[in-house]
């Protein structure tokens, strides 16, 4: 149900230090998300696609994920072109599609996909435990990183428990429909999942005490950034700066 389909791999991207990938992902996403013109996000979209190619993901996964992200974008296309005031290009049953509206929808689409491919190639390729360590190394509070890592640890255990409960319900003839009993059944399943999660957390806490836990999570330090990591990070920082500068130029040009 919940699988990191991209985190394992032997590509050049996977070989990079997790801290560098996380930083690069942030650096590239920022100008793409903030841009006002098309040029910068288009450039980053291109770079994101290149990085995705380098990370050698399974094609099916990429297509499915791309489609999922663009559902919200498609939803925007339903409303934005006709709702933005400006120069009309097409009128249909009282709805006026404007040039500004089309531009805004297009810009949003490019920005969303540019960031998506950066996340896909740089963030989704980091296994969650390594991401937790990378966040701490980059200054995120340790408590938050541990919360992230342990949530990830038990996600699979609980998803499996839930899956077995659903199987049990189906075996006894449960067929979801829009009625009170269906909602009652889901509420019961949900409550059972929570109760078992809570009970489990008590047992896990005991296990922690048994292994000498005294209010602080230690961690092994194991980051080693070599020159390829540094070169990569510099290149990405340069690309991000270029995109931001380009967007700023085009903005002041219009003004």
């Amino acid at each position, binding site marked *: 149900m919940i699988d990191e389909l991209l985190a394992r791999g032997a590509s050049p991207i996977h070989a990079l230090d997790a801290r560098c990938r996380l930083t690069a992902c942030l650096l590239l996403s920022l100008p793409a998300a903030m841009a006002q013109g098309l040029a910068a996000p288009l450039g980053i979209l291109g770079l994101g696609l290149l990085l995705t190619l380098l990370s050698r993901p399974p094609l099916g996964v990429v297509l499915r994920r791309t489609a999922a992200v663009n559902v919200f974008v498609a939803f925007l296309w339903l409303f934005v072109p006709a709702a933005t005031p400006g120069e009309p290009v097409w009128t249909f049953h009282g709805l006026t599609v404007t040039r500004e509206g089309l531009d*805004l929808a297009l810009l949003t689409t490019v920005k969303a996909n540019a960031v998506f491919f950066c996340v896909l190639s740089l963030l989704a390729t980091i296994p969650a435990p390594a991401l937790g360590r990378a966040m701490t190394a980059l200054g995120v509070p340790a408590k938050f990183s541990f919360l992230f890592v342990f*949530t990830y640890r038990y996600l699979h*255990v609980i*998803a499996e428990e839930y899956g077995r409960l659903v199987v049990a319900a189906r075996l006894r003839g449960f067929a979801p429909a829009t009625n009170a009993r269906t909602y009652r059944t889901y509420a019961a399943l949900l409550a059972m*999942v929570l109760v078992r999660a809570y009970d489990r957390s008590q047992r896990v806490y005991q296990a922690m005490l048994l292994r000498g836990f005294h209010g602080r999570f230690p961690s092994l330090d194991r980051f080693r950034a070599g020159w390829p990591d540094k070169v990569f990070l510099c290149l990405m920082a340069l690309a991000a700066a270029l995109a931001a500068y380009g967007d700023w130029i085009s903005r002041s040009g219009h003004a």
Partner: protein
Amino acid sequence: MHISEGVLSGPVLAGGWALSAVGVGLGLKRLDYDRLMTVAILSAAFFVGSLIHVPIGPVSAHLILNGLLGAILGPAAFPAIAVALLLQAVLFQYGGLIVLGANVFDMAGPAVACAFAFGPLLRRAGKARAVGAFCCGFFAVLLAALLTACALALSGEGFVATAKAIVVAHVPIMLVEGAVTAMAVGFLAKVRPELLVHAPTR
């Protein structure tokens, strides 16, 4: 109810990050390491619970559960939701890191607000508890939809129509969430009343 990356304007994104950082910070401050594992495992349970698709008429929608999460975790729901959304970004690429702040605040703000507003009702018995739980589920989704809509509307005039559509589309979900939350809290009160003690008292 994720806003995808690239939609919101700079100030809205920055505001989302600032508010979320404060919320996560306050939530973490109240959370000591001894209870961290409980919050992590419950957060995982909510992540899984929010993958439940329930039929609503001809379509199906997934549960959001931020109201129930707030009812159980209180202020710790803030970091819990932040962690869950970050995991969704990493595992499924729903939204990136830039829009994360806004998405976290839209979901977690209402969760904690409802916990404070209706928390006292949750520890009473019978009808009062059911009403409080329904309100937690209902208003947490309503507020989340409103905040999402505001974030969109503030980002540009072109997004106002989308914002309205989002609120309207969530009305049936609010009702279902309210009902499911009320029933789930009823079961929890019977089976593990300890789970409800962290709801804020004030």
